[in-house]
């Protein structure tokens, strides 16, 4: 056996990465404007790390939402290089750092400050589809049983973290303030196809309205944007199919 001297593992090198952030301070600015920040980052760093570095070391007035930082709370949805992503799930090595990386608030919801938008219209649409179990008859004395096959029917929709990436990537949602948006339809889908739920008819009726699923133009922006890998457009199509064939 010959001992082979192992090459020393090179220490990771931090490179300067430039971010173009769309800033808006309602007390100072009349209109949002772009500002550039350069911070040293490792390839494995997240965009969220960069924003925290900017806020902590360069400009403390930068505002954004973040909670868990691990892609499960859905707080830090933003447009990174023109695509809706979670800042905590987007790594520097996956972005082209030869050009400045643009970061801006998600579109289609009222801008409040920097990267923060008013989420109320989004949650209003979510509430409108009644995203909770609706049952009829007597309360069972034990669990509501469900077969594995029936559970699999709506599995995709249960992954939603309500980050609004899909809804705010939808061109119809941008232009039409009343469209329910993909996230609300996914939430409805999750209960419509749940064998334990008996409110499917009510939800279908809500989604059959003028501002419901028929506004969907099948552009697949929502499926592309979803950080949880939900096939959002497919979920919307399933609701359309249920509406067409229900009678």
């Amino acid at each position, binding site marked *: 056996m010959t001992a082979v001297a192992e090459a020393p593992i090179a220490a990771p090198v931090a490179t300067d990465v430039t971010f173009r952030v769309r800033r808006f301070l309602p007390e100072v600015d009349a209109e949002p404007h772009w500002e550039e920040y350069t911070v040293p980052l490792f390839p494995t760093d997240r965009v969220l790390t960069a924003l925290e570095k900017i806020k902590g070391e360069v400009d403390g007035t930068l505002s954004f939402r973040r909670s868990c930082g691990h892609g499960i709370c859905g707080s830090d949805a933003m447009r990174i290089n023109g695509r809706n992503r979670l800042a905590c799930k987007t790594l520097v090595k996956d972005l082209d750092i030869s050009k400045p990386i643009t970061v801006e608030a998600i579109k289609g919801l009222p801008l409040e400050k920097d990267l923060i938008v008013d989420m109320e219209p989004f949650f*209003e649409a979510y509430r409108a589809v009644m995203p909770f179990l609706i049952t009829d008859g007597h309360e069972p004395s034990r669990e509501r049983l469900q077969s594995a096959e029936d559970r699999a029917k709506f599995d995709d929709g249960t992954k939603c973290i309500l980050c609004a990436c899909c809804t705010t990537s939808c061109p119809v949602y941008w232009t039409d303030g009343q469209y329910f948006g993909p996230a609300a339809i996914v939430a409805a889908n999750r209960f419509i196809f749940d064998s334990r739920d008996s409110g499917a008819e009510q939800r279908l009726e809500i989604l*059959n309205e003028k501002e419901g699923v028929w*506004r969907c133009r099948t552009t697949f922006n929502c499926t592309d944007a979803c950080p949880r890998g939900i096939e959002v457009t497919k979920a919307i199509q399933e609701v359309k199919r249920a509406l067409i064939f229900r009678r």
Partner: protein
Amino acid sequence: MSTTSQPESISIAAPRSSNRTGQRSNFELYSWLFMRISGIVLIFLVLGHLFIMNILDGGVQRINFAFVAGRWSSPFWQVWDLLMLWLAMIHGTNGMRTIINDYAERDQTRFWLKMLLFTAAGFTIILGTLVIFTFDPNIG
């Protein structure tokens, strides 16, 4: 007769309540289905029309009054053209209606743009239908 019931004018919507009207109708469903079905039918009607008029038997050069008169003496071509006119006009109008709904921001703008659209579409459909049915090959 109860006198305690409140007059209708007092009831106001709760704060932050949805301003969705909640009208129950299948109109959007049928308009969505119509777009898909008419689209498929139009592929055959329009491509067939283009092929027959512009490529077959000498193509566009042979088209004159006599050619049109000959075609429209057959009920088959009358039905073909009528179907193509109606489907294309309603398909296009419905598409434009969707675009106006998307992009017009004020209700007034939306309403008048749609009125203009429906008037233009109605005029074209009526005029076209009239021509197909009242065409007189012995005119002049």
